[in-house]
């Protein structure tokens, strides 16, 4: 019982704890690159799940847009880190994002039809909001390389667009 309860609490903490903790040490460029790349890859994985499960055209189109855009941004990110000779470095934020995404994927796997569509799109709104908040408040101000900062700034504009697009799809699903 105690084991169960603490496991439950740990899961709850994982799901509700802010991935991007306020006041944490300023991330380095190699860490920022890793976080940005991971965030993109996780959204691609989420979109692939949607493409496997959803039959709704608007949801599928949105998921395809996510795969296409995030693949392109990550391609640019990889090209930049290669050019700058920065080796992306795994870190607590990347790990927390990955864990949280895995939990969400398991949760969504149990849903089907309209329930899945709604939950996927609602999570896309929330996920982009979280990542955009982190870009604005932590990642962009912390980036020391000008080109990395520039890529993050463009990324922020793209992801803000995705957030609005997801909000639009969410309102159509109501």
């Amino acid at each position, binding site marked *: 019982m105690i084991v169960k309860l603490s496991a439950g609490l740990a899961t709850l903490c994982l799901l509700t704890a802010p991935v991007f903790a306020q006041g944490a040490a300023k991330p380095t460029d190699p860490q920022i690159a890793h976080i940005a790349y991971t965030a993109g890859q996780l959204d691609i994985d989420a979109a692939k799940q949607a493409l496997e499960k959803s039959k709704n055209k608007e949801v599928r189109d949105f998921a395809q847009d996510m795969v296409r*855009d995030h693949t392109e941004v990550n391609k640019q990110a990889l090209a930049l880190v290669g050019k700058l000779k920065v080796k992306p470095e795994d870190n607590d934020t990347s790990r927390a994002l990955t864990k949280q995404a895995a939990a969400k994927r398991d949760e969504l796997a149990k849903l089907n039809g309209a329930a899945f569509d709604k939950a996927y799109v609602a999570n896309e709104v929330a996920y982009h909001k979280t990542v955009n908040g982190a870009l604005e408040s932590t990642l962009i101000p912390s980036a020391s390389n000008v080109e990395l900062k520039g890529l993050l700034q463009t990324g922020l504009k793209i992801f803000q667009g995705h957030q*609005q*697009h997801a909000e639009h799809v969410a309102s159509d699903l109501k």
Partner: protein
Amino acid sequence: MTPERIAFVARVILGLSVSARAETIQVTIDKLVFTPAEVNAKVGDTIEWINKDALVHTATATDGDWNVNIQASQRGQVVMKKPGAAEYYCKLHPNMRGRIVVAP
């Protein structure tokens, strides 16, 4: 000249003069920004978007009148058919917005 012939010649002259006056107005898309954000055109003019991003964008009239899909690093065009101010945005990134003021 028969009246039909006169009408035909008039149509040709009118048609030529309209197409001679019609212009193509270019709008660049770079890093999710339409530049210039606002352009002036006349009915019959073509708006051409030059997409410098490696992303697919659209130029979509908010009133649903027209929609142009613009592939990554490609161009897209639409002819302005009616006067008035047309607001438009990118369906895929709705934070991208532009405006075309069309004179009669």
